[in-house]
């Protein structure tokens, strides 16, 4: 009888959690829709429209009108938005204005490269940040802790290109340990790829690791103030064991949250790092498209970046709900 009641309570407790998660998923989808609207409005309704962007200086009133008709710009905006969104939903982003190739064809290899770079960087940065953060928490107030704090304060304000060019100058030009150009092609073997992209990955890692490890340290130290930690100390456990076995698992939730948010930051970092190492990724493609006013490519790349950003933010949100009992029981 009593187990039955407990079981009932369990499901009753889980249901609002599930609803909250579904709510977040719905919210994420809504945000993505809003972002698509923003991208569309940004590229098509602003005063300098697509037709004048394509024609540039050679625009005469007649050629403008003709180009508008050709691009379908003479129809009302909401019709064009619905049409664009419908096409996007089935994976049709139209044709590039610069190369006249299919946008999806143009983007797919670039996107693969960027995802490779981002995942590689995340795999390196996340464990590194956690280990360094735990070490700083164990030796809190010591020389290591203070040194790490100072260095992270510095790296947080340093732009990616400075880190990148310093790495190129010393690790690549002077000592020739790594190649300075990450010029991968679709048939570069996996092993070579890891070496070619090592410097860009290291740059990204150095830039995001600082913030992640500071938050790891702060979350662990926050838990260290709780009574059960004092209990563990009173049992006579060594400090590293208290930190790693008692404090860290309980600090994991806020840490995961911070990691997800920082990975969202990686998206912007990727654009600059790709430019530094001339890496054929989505960021480079988007920058080129912006300077060439190639609106369909800009829209597609922008939507992909926005989707990744929203997805990571949503993941952070959901993880925060799952891990925080106070958020699990909304009043």
């Amino acid at each position, binding site marked *: 009888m009593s187990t039955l009641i407990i079981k009932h309570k369990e499901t009753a407790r889980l249901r609002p959690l599930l609803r909250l998660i579904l709510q977040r998923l719905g919210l994420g989808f809504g*945000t993505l829709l*809003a*972002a698509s609207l*923003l*991208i569309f409005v*940004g*590229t098509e309704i*602003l*005063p*300098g*429209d*697509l037709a004048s*962007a394509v024609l540039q200086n050679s625009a005469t009133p007649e050629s403008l009108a003709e180009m508008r008709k050709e691009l379908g710009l003479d129809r009302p905006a909401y019709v064009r938005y619905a049409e664009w969104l419908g096409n996007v939903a089935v994976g049709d982003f139209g044709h590039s204005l610069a190369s006249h190739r299919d946008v999806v064809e143009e983007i797919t290899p670039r996107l693969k490269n960027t995802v490779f770079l981002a995942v590689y960087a995340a795999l390196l940065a996340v464990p590194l940040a956690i280990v360094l953060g735990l070490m700083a928490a164990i030796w809190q107030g010591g020389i290591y802790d203070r040194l790490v704090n100072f260095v992270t*304060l*510095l790296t*947080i*304000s*340093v*732009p990616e*290109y*400075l880190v990148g*060019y*310093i790495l*190129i*100058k010393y690790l690549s*030009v*002077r000592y020739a340990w790594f190649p*300075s150009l990450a010029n991968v092609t679709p048939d570069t073997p996996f092993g070579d790829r890891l070496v070619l992209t090592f410097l860009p990955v290291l740059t990204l890692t150095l830039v995001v690791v600082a913030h992640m490890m500071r938050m790891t340290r702060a979350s662990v130290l926050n838990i260290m103030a709780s009574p059960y930690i004092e209990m563990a100390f009173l049992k006579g456990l060594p400090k590293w064991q208290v930190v790693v076995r008692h404090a860290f698992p309980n600090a994991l939730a806020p840490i995961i949250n911070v990691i997800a948010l920082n990975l*969202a930051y990686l*998206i*912007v970092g990727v*654009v*600059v790092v790709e*430019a*530094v190492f001339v890496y054929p990724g989505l960021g480079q493609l*988007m*920058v080129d*498209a*912006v*300077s060439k*006013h*190639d*609106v369909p490519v*800009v*829209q597609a790349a*922008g939507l992909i*970046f*926005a989707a990744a*950003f*929203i997805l990571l933010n949503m993941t952070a949100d959901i993880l925060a709900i799952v891990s925080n009992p106070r958020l699990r029981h909304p009043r």
Partner: protein
Amino acid sequence: MRLFGHRVTILAMLGMAVIIINLVAAIGAPWIAPWDQAEIVGDAWGDPDADHVYVPLMGLDNLGRDLFSRLIYGARMSIGLSFIITCLSFAIGITTGFTAAVLKGWVDTALSRLVDLLLSMPTLIFAFIILSVLGTELPVLIVTIAILDSTKVFRLSRALAMNLAALEYVEVARVRGEGLWWVIRKEILPNAMAPLIAEFGLRFSFAFLFIAALSFLGLGIQPPDADWGSMVRDYRDMINLDSTAPLYPAGAIALLTIGVNFVVDWMLAIHSRSHGDG
């Protein structure tokens, strides 16, 4: 050393020194720089021709201009532009944020949702989308970055004003029949000043890094104006010849950002101390 009745930390002093040096360089560029920013004084990456008293500290650049002189002129463009952008973003952000907090109701909801919408995408990506249509003229850059940046100012000033607007003296002023603008200017703004000044520093370094990143990508300030981001871009190929050229402007960007952050950290610390546990 004490400043405004607060002890100044060593890091804050370092930060202030960096900021002052940069400001002096920016304002006094024509008098300090040995050559003009566009003046070609020798061969590319070579030595200056003719007789000269001044030995180029950092050598000549890709077009034979003096790198050090361009760095000094670059301070003017990079800092001046970021300052204008930050001022504009504060004007927009504070006005809308305070208005939302004081009026509440649908005005608040509408403004907050609009800001949520703008923040649903990474700022750099959103800026790309605007620049792809409008091009990279200076006014476009300034307004775009200022509007994107003002979303953060809006959130802070709205939160600050929400707390202040609930206080009795603001209530009294409103009951007395003072107008919206008067309440914002006389009752709310003076009391929100301290956190807003620290935020100004943060927003400035954001705008500064942002415009530098855009210029580095070739989508920001266009030649012939010297600015640090484009200088990194212009000199980047030299890194493969073991030259230090691109590291000077990149280092200047980092140095100023670090300096500003040191001062902001100090200001936030004294602010939290005077409001927190004493």
